[in-house]
């Protein structure tokens, strides 16, 4: 059964109604204007206090030493090292987790097999794990006292307190993000178009590039951008495995913490503002991608024509 159908008719019916019946009368299913404005004011106040104020705080604090001080803070060597490691981490993590997301979504949404429900339930697990615990499990597994630690050390491959540890911990915390976007999308789309393509003689890659990918591109973009934001901003897990080696294992969030703990508050906020800008771009792209996804639960107001 198509779940979207019951949603379509009321939307269309509502749009057909006249917007105002007559001056001074209100529809019996609407609240009186003062109540409406009171509720809007309360909601705006709450979002302003918890979302807008922190954003404003970041940028005002970041610019306390002027533009020159800001530029100096974000271009000093330690900051550049942190930016480099963060970009490197994201460049490894995002493609790998995208590959995983595509493979997992394809296997789970398109095939019925034993253990499918269990596999589906296992994918979101990293989201329920505290970032500190996410870091801890890799220290236990790969650290000097873990079962793989001595073997890695013998080969001169330090993982924990080294960049590979940062990458692995980030892989873990961002693992479900692309899969979580693609899986419900593929399930909602159904397999008919792909089956038709196969029956018409298309090969596996042709089906993927010409049927599946065009259908999921906005969801995929959404997943990519969320995965990237989390990969660049992850703090707890990376903090545990990094050992805070300056110039070697500091990512941007860890560099922010170092500056903050050295009471270089303005510099800390200047570097933090880079991540804040990234977050704002992420929200913008997510919003634009959401407008392209038809009848997605997150975009209930997306206009849709009645059949």
């Amino acid at each position, binding site marked *: 059964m198509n779940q979207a159908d019951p949603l379509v008719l*009321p939307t269309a019916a509502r749009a057909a109604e006249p917007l105002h019946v007559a001056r001074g009368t209100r529809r019996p299913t609407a609240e009186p204007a003062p109540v409406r404005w009171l509720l809007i004011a309360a909601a705006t106040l709450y979002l302003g206090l918890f979302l807008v104020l922190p954003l404003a705080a970041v940028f005002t604090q970041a610019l306390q030493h002027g533009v020159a001080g800001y530029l100096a803070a974000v271009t000093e060597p330690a900051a550049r090292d942190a930016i480099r490691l963060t970009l490197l981490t994201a460049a490894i993590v995002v493609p790998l987790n995208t590959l995983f997301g595509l493979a997992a979504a394809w296997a789970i949404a398109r095939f019925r097999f034993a253990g499918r429900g269990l596999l589906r339930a296992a994918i979101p697990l990293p989201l329920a794990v505290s970032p500190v615990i996410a870091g801890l499990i890799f220290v236990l597994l790969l650290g000097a006292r873990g079962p793989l630690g001595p073997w890695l050390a013998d080969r001169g491959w330090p993982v924990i307190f080294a960049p590979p540890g940062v990458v692995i911990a980030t892989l873990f915390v961002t693992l479900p993000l692309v899969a979580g976007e693609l899986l419900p999308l593929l399930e909602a789309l159904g397999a008919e178009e792909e*089956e038709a393509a196969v029956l018409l003689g298309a090969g596996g890659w042709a089906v993927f590039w010409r049927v599946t990918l065009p259908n999921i591109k906005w969801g995929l973009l959404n997943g990519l951008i969320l995965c990237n934001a989390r990969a660049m901003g992850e703090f707890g897990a990376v903090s545990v495995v990094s050992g805070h080696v300056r110039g070697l294992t500091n990512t941007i969030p860890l560099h922010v913490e170092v500056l903050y703990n050295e009471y270089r508050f303005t510099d800390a906020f200047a570097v933090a503002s880079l991540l804040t800008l990234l977050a704002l771009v992420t929200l913008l792209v997510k919003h634009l991608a959401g407008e392209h996804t038809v009848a997605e639960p997150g975009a209930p107001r997306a206009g849709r024509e009645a059949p």
Partner: protein
Amino acid sequence: MSLRAYSVLPGFGPALGFTLLYLTLLVLLPLAMLALRAAGLSWEQFWATVTAPRALAAYRLSFGAALVSSLVNVAWGLLVAWVLVRYDFPGRRVLDALVDLPFALPTAVAGIALTALYAPEGWVGRLLALAGVQAAFTPLGVVVALTFIGLPFVVRTVQPVLAALEPELEEAAATLGADRWQTFWRVVWPALVPALLTGFALACARTLGEYGSVVFIAGNLPLQTEIAPLLILIKLEQYDYPGAAALATVMLGASFLLLRVVHLLQRWSRVHDEPS
């Protein structure tokens, strides 16, 4: 009998193989390692570690603050979802997009920004000081940080349900003589309860293990403002690996339990939605 139903689509083997390998290496094996480490302790040692006064205080703060902040977010999240779905006003689209900010903003950035705001000399802290309240470096600060982190969950679970609610139901209630308030409590509210509970449980699960946004604002005094994830980190830094693993096992058990509750709630709400 075959273990999978027949399909004409290609790629099942490689896709499933890669998925299983990736998930095993990155998630299942490391999580199993945690259980193995915790199992290295005898039952008495394990029990003594996880019920030490410092551990109990940390659990109390982490669980208590997660609970309080999630309740705050249920009330305000319902209001925000209602306003964003039902009313049109200048700035609505911007506010709607901003609701996801706690997902996108790195937790360390949220932590230092909230600390700057709620410190005694900060914009909000100054106002609170007039009322004789100190938020930063107290348990209240922990609640503030977790409220920020949990904000999107209730809003985003209630929004689609509210948008899909058929206006005919409310119109019928009004026709039968119900006022707006009665319509809300008797018609709209029951339909929203599953979504509210799901959002609440999701917010709890997310905030329970939160670290980055909390450590800056909490003060981190043992027995007073020390959250459970921080205590795990401290044990790790003291090379008390089994102790860290024991505390982590308890936290992880609670998180997975919450995830299970979310799953059951979602199934329950689907059963409710399904027109037979």
